[in-house]
């Protein structure tokens, strides 16, 4: 039998250190929903999601109670809508966003991802329709999340798409918190706002995202001043324990819903709650404030050790898997940004070694679309050259300037407005075209 101290340490992880399963996400293929009529297609979309995900929330809650482990979010990810709607006789795709939103309300999930298009090489007319619809779609719906993949290591960077997304982010205002611009997007990411059910996925799948920055931070408190070999070992062991919980929940949810288990995403995802911060882990390693010199190295170690520990704990690992560094969703990051230690430039450097990218960052409301596009281009370049997923979730709240703070509410948290470079990127972004795919040898 498990001994008392093991039981108490697990309870301590859950009760005091915020160990939770961040999301159980059901991926649903909508490929069979397409009809010529947009109304008929929208109805099929709604019906299929409501039918397939009917028990998702109830099963999630049952598992929560039986295992005593919080499952913070239950979510749905669907086939990119640009692919589902391509054959419909309409160029107004807002109807499909509304169908997704209605289905999300009906099945009781708090977000539904997949109002998406993959345009890393070029736009189909359906992709054009979808991108045009994003600002209105996010405005008239509550739970729909959107993502657009603008670059990949194989295709290079679609700079026309980058320019368009700069304009879309700007047009979305505060709703841009529900919009992610990707490079090398993955098909099985369970985390919002970037989740969608990719082309290589099956009919329906359960993906699980774990969390647990608080657990890692507490574990590191026990090895103050120890060399990094020891730090890496402690993180690996902790990540193993955290991921085992995700694997258990994934297996159980898959069995009860009779849906195949896809992957466990090993990401360390923070929340605005005190003690649930990735920045706190970096500071625990000896940095006075996150963002100071040494932060990138600390994050690199953390990200790698989390993967090494987690990968043995789960049968299938996928998604984004690493450490997330959203600013507004992490109390420590907010603190760093407010005191001036954490800047946009440092965050960009950190994204070279972390799992995703510039996440939940607020910039002044008068930031130009071209500057936002240029930030997206920089981030996409990091992903494309380094063979990794990168993303930008940037918000330019209208009317807000440096010194202000925007509150998104709930898990999305609040963010101080961060400074952007005041010099123009207009002519750079106006060029358009494509940045060619990079060479994958002669690496230096």
């Amino acid at each position, binding site marked *: *039998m*498990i001994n*008392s101290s*093991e*039981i*108490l*340490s*697990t*309870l301590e*992880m859950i009760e005091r250190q915020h160990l939770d399963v961040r999301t159980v996400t059901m991926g649903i293929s909508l490929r069979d929903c397409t009809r010529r009529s947009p109304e008929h297609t929208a109805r099929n979309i709604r019906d299929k999601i409501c039918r397939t995900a009917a028990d998702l929330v109830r099963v999630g809650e*049952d598992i929560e*109670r*039986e*295992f*005593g*482990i919080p499952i913070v979010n239950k979510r749905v990810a669907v086939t990119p809508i640009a692919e589902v709607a391509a054959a419909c006789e309409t160029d107004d795709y807002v109807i499909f966003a509304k169908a997704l939103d209605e289905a999300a309300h009906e099945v009781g999930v708090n977000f539904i991802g997949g109002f998406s298009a993959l345009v890393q090489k070029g736009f189909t007319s359906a992709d054009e329709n979808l991108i045009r619809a994003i600002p209105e779609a996010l405005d008239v719906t509550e739970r729909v999340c959107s993502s657009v993949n603008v670059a990949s290591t194989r295709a290079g960077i679609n700079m026309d798409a980058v320019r368009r997304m700069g304009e879309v982010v700007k047009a979305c205002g505060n709703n841009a918190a529900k919009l992610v611009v990707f490079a090398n997007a993955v098909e099985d990411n369970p985390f919002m706002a970037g989740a969608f059910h990719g082309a290589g996925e099956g009919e329906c799948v359960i993906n699980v995202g774990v969390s647990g920055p608080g657990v890692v931070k507490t574990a590191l408190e026990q090895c103050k001043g120890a060399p990094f070999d020891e730090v890496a070992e402690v993180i690996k062991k902790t990540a193993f*324990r955290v991921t*085992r*919980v995700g*694997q*258990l929940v994934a297996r159980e949810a898959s069995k009860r819903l009779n849906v195949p288990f896809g992957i466990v995403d090993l990401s360390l995802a923070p929340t605005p709650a005190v003690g649930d911060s990735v920045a706190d882990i970096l500071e625990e390693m000896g940095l006075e404030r996150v963002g100071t010199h040494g932060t990138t190295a600390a994050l690199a170690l953390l990200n790698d050790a989390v993967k090494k520990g987690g990968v043995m704990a789960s049968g299938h690992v996928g998604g984004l898997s690493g450490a997330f560094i959203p600013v507004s969703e992490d109390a420590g990051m907010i603190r760093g940004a407010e005191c001036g230690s954490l800047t946009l430039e440092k965050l960009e450097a950190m994204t070279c070694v972390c799992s995703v990218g510039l996440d939940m960052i607020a910039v002044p409301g008068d930031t130009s679309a071209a500057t936002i596009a240029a930030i997206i281009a920089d981030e996409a370049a990091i992903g494309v050259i380094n063979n990794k997923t990168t993303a930008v979730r940037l918000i330019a709240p209208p009317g807000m300037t440096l010194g202000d703070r925007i509150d998104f509410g709930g898990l999305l948290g609040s963010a101080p407005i961060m400074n952007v470079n005041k010099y123009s990127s207009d002519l750079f972004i106006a060029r358009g075209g494509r940045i060619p795919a990079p060479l994958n040898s002669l690496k230096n």
Partner: protein
Amino acid sequence: MKSIVTVIGADRIGIIAAVCTELAKLKVNILDISQTVMQEYFTMIMLVDVAACDSPFGELSDALSELGKREGLSIRIQREDIFNATNRI
């Protein structure tokens, strides 16, 4: 199905009696008990079998936390698997 009941709270007379009476009422079979008092805090861990229990797990869990509220204790029941998962390879 094996589960773990944990009872934590300020030590006083009758905690074990109260918890065991409630478990018996719910038809939960106790397989093993370990109990200690750490810094005046009573900590009891029980391995139980809920196979004979008629009510769904959620109700069982509610009944125990209700008892906990009445007695000023924190009482939880969780499936054993969660502890195996976090502590065993």
